[in-house]
């Protein structure tokens, strides 16, 4: 029953927000930023599992790259310390560069994969890097039951 939206503009004009799913953080490896790849059941009818997992895994890889402690981060840290961190006023940190890449990736994913399926991913940085928020939209023009089902719990529909 996936409603088809051709692009993000259509999503905006013809759809109403039905539900939101929050992908939580995965702390099994410590405090580094990583999200769970467990497929939420609300998305089962909307998107293929592999696509979803690919998105989350790519995001996790980006965050791992940003938070990697290695030669480049040492160099950045030492250089910054030597200049009393004034260099951060002019230079962008590696993390910020990766965050920009993440923003572009999420936009691309939304345009190509998620919006056509009536879904929208919110960049985790806008939610404090706590969750990946996926908004599920219902076609406004569809029958009352499908848009009304969002307000009545799924239990009555079952």
């Amino acid at each position, binding site marked *: 029953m996936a409603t088809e939206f051709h692009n993000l503009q259509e999503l905006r004009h013809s759809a109403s927000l039905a539900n939101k799913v929050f992908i939580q953080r995965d*702390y099994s*490896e410590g405090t580094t930023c990583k999200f769970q790849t467990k497929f939420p059941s609300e998305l089962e009818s909307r998107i293929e599992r592999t696509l979803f997992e690919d998105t989350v895994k790519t995001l996790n890889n980006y965050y791992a790259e940003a938070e990697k402690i290695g030669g480049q981060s040492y160099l950045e840290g030492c250089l910054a310390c030597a200049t009393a961190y004034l260099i951060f006023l002019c230079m962008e940190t590696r993390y910020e560069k990766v965050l920009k890449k993440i923003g572009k990736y999420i936009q691309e994913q939304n345009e190509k994969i998620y919006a056509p399926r009536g879904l929208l991913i919110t960049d985790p940085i806008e939610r404090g890097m*706590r969750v990946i928020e996926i908004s599920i939209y219902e076609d406004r023009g569809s029958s009352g039951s499908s848009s009304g089902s969002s307000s009545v719990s*799924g239990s009555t529909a079952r």
Partner: protein
Amino acid sequence: MSAVMITRKVRKWEKLPGKNTFCCDGRVMMARQKGVFYLTLFLIVGTCSLFFAFECPYLAVHLSPTIPVFAVLLFLFVIAMLLRTSFSDPGVLPRALPEEASFIEMEIEAANGNVPAGQRPPPRIRNVQINNQIVKLKYCYTCKIFRPPRASHCSICDNCVDRFDHHCPWVGNCVGKRNYRYFYLFTMSLSLLTIYIFTFDIVHVVMRSVDNGFLNTLKETPGSVLEVLVCFFTLWSVVGLTGFHTYLISLNQTTNEDIKGSWSGKNRVQNPYSHKNILKNCCEVLCGPAYPSVLDRRGLMQEDSSASATSAAPPGSSMSSSNSMSSSTAPPTMHAVLCLQKTTAPLIPNEHTPEDVKPSLGASEQKSPSPKEQRPPTPKLPPLASPETDAEASITKDKTH
């Protein structure tokens, strides 16, 4: 019908909950009580000024001109680190938006099952496994989130801070993930500066006394006495603090964890964040990546007092400068609700929300969170994929309230 959209350019920091003060249009973020911070600044600047006024001319001539030069560099470094620690975001975690909060509430309800009437519901704790150790994540009732590991809620600033170390009144801010290394460098460089000034004070007094006599020296440079006193008392505390934090860094612990004894004792969990290698721990804490702030303080909030929903796209230019792709593509009603409620999420759901923030649509009523701890929110948001019985139970509960 045309909607009257009055957009006032308000930056997000103006609507942030919590007890921080902001300066320079959101660039500077500090705690509310800044008195002790001014004292710190006064002591450092005052003592160094006396040093430059009284000691430096004599020492530059009689010993070496590099002495005052090095003192100036050290002084500037100390001030830079102090200001960096005081003015930056320590790693504040933004509060959960209403949808996220209700999502978590529903998960908790589903996990708890049916609590018999009259019994207290179980404490809200989530167990996670980190490096084969079980760590308990506590739920924060103020921020409505399960705190990430090592995060803690600062009651003075009323924020959850990531990798919370402690709230330092001397710097007028919390010390957390983002500013811990600046704080450490501040204490270390201040120790060096204090030792430096103390040493050269003594040297200066001794050298002058050899020429003029002790009492005459004191009359000529009264500042020296003051400096020696300040440095003497500062030395013990600051050097002690630097030593303590060096110990914490080598074990990859925070002051908060040390005070609570989270990782000490035989029966307790061992520190799962430590690499068991002092050098690795130091490198991670001091040379790790520079984490960005997740509070978009200087982003622009869109505020409109439109009387009815329009399908007009929100003006993209007044949106936050950060990557706010989702807000620019969500439907305008949702965009308005999400955007406005993002930073005006009340602490307790029944608290008054400012009038100019409430969108006049029915959407606001749908999204407003229900009373704290009582029941699942209004059924606009369907329950999770919880077992059917729990979903039915929660709806039944809803109806009985």
